[in-house]
């Protein structure tokens, strides 16, 4: 082996190790984000917080780790082009609120779930999938977190719970909506859904 090819292998090896550890670091980051969000919901010091306040704090934790716009843009797909710039921004914000509301309300009255991250698999170019199991109320659920390396770093673009992809589910709904409706109708629908929540704004979880 020449000195040159030895150096080439060394560089390649180092690059490979760096890529693998960068991907593995995503597991730690994801676990940290999940724990931080659950701490907000289940912490004894937060029992006096309203549902709305908890949602705001959970959002802060999620956004400190990931750009939630990525998952929402992925769910909107080509329908993005059917909206003007202002509608796009409003839809991003409203869907974000809706998803966080569903997450926080979904755990309402339940024991803290135990979430264990499993294997990390590379599923394509700049894409990884992290397996996890969630034990909630004695039932075990299998959840996959899909991440992609974007310009802004590794971002979650889909969550697959029990074979059902959240992004695909929202894409299906939004596709169906745009067959007959407009961006303005979508905004009205989202506001309507969130307004229902406002009635329970002071509901303690």
């Amino acid at each position, binding site marked *: 082996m020449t000195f040159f090819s030895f150096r080439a292998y060394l560089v390649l090896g180092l690059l490979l190790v760096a890529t693998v550890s960068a991907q593995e670091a995503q597991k730690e980051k994801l676990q940290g984000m999940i724990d931080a969000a659950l701490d907000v919901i289940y912490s004894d010091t937060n029992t006096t917080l309203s549902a709305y306040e908890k949602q705001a704090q959970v959002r802060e934790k999620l956004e400190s780790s990931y750009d939630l716009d990525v998952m929402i843009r992925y769910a909107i*797909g080509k329908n993005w082009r059917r909206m003007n710039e202002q509608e796009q921004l409003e839809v991003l914000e409203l869907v974000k609120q809706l998803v966080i509301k569903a997450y926080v309300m979904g755990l309402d009255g339940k024991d803290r779930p135990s979430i264990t991250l499993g294997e990390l698999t590379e599923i394509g170019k700049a894409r990884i999938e992290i397996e996890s199991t969630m034990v909630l109320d004695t039932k075990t659920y299998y959840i996959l977190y899909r991440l992609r390396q974007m310009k802004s770093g590794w971002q979650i673009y889909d969550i697959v719970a029990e074979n059902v992809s959240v992004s695909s589910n929202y894409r299906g709904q939004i596709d*169906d909506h745009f067959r007959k409706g407009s961006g303005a109708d979508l905004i009205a629908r989202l506001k309507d859904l969130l307004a229902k929540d406002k009635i329970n704004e002071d509901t303690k979880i």
Partner: protein
Amino acid sequence: MKTQKFKRPLAWACLIGLISVTSLTAQDGKLTEDEAFFYEEFDEIAGVYDPFESVNRFTFEFNDFVFSNTLQPLVDTYTAITPDSVEEGASNFFNNLRYPVRLASNLLQGRFKGAWIETGRFAINSTVGIVGIMAPADAYESFAPIESEDVGQVFGAWGIGEGPYLVLPFLGPSNLRDLAGLFGDRAINPIKEPSSMIDDWEWEWQLATSGADYISRSPQIIERYKQLKGSSIDPYSSLKNGYTQYRRGAVAE
């Protein structure tokens, strides 16, 4: 000599220029790549055939009304007056009775390991677990619960297509293949006609048993339905997509 003096800085300038151009192009390419990623098509939602959408939506509204006004209060009362252990016992009992459906479905798909696990679970739960009220088999790693199989999945594994998406009154989302599968499940089920193992089975008792089975499964169904409805832009579309993805996943596993 003079030329030599200029050669090195020129080479460096060229290299820096090249790196900058490459980097800018790469960034630009990355941006385009990110945008292209957002517009990707999903395999999961491809081909949900829904030619009866207007009828299905009507049935969906009907079911929603029944769920909200009849089943929900019934389930609320059931969960309020029944201790958790009794609820769990009822759910275990009816689940244990569906063993023949799961066994046949595993065998028909050539899943012999699944058939063995189901048989072991049935034997342990029916004896040690007092006619299936308890589930002591859960404690054994080799007989831990597995994904439940049904005749609809068998048809899927045999390559039979889903057919049109359907919303069944009282029962919810389905498709033509799963509807046929429901009849198959019923034919195998030992406490339901036509294969009932109980002689002189009065219709009142049949209705009561089916009702109890339905109610024992309802708290979970209602909970999931409420969550889905609360976070959906279009609950009908969400349920259609969710059901289809779930069933396709179950058949593929």
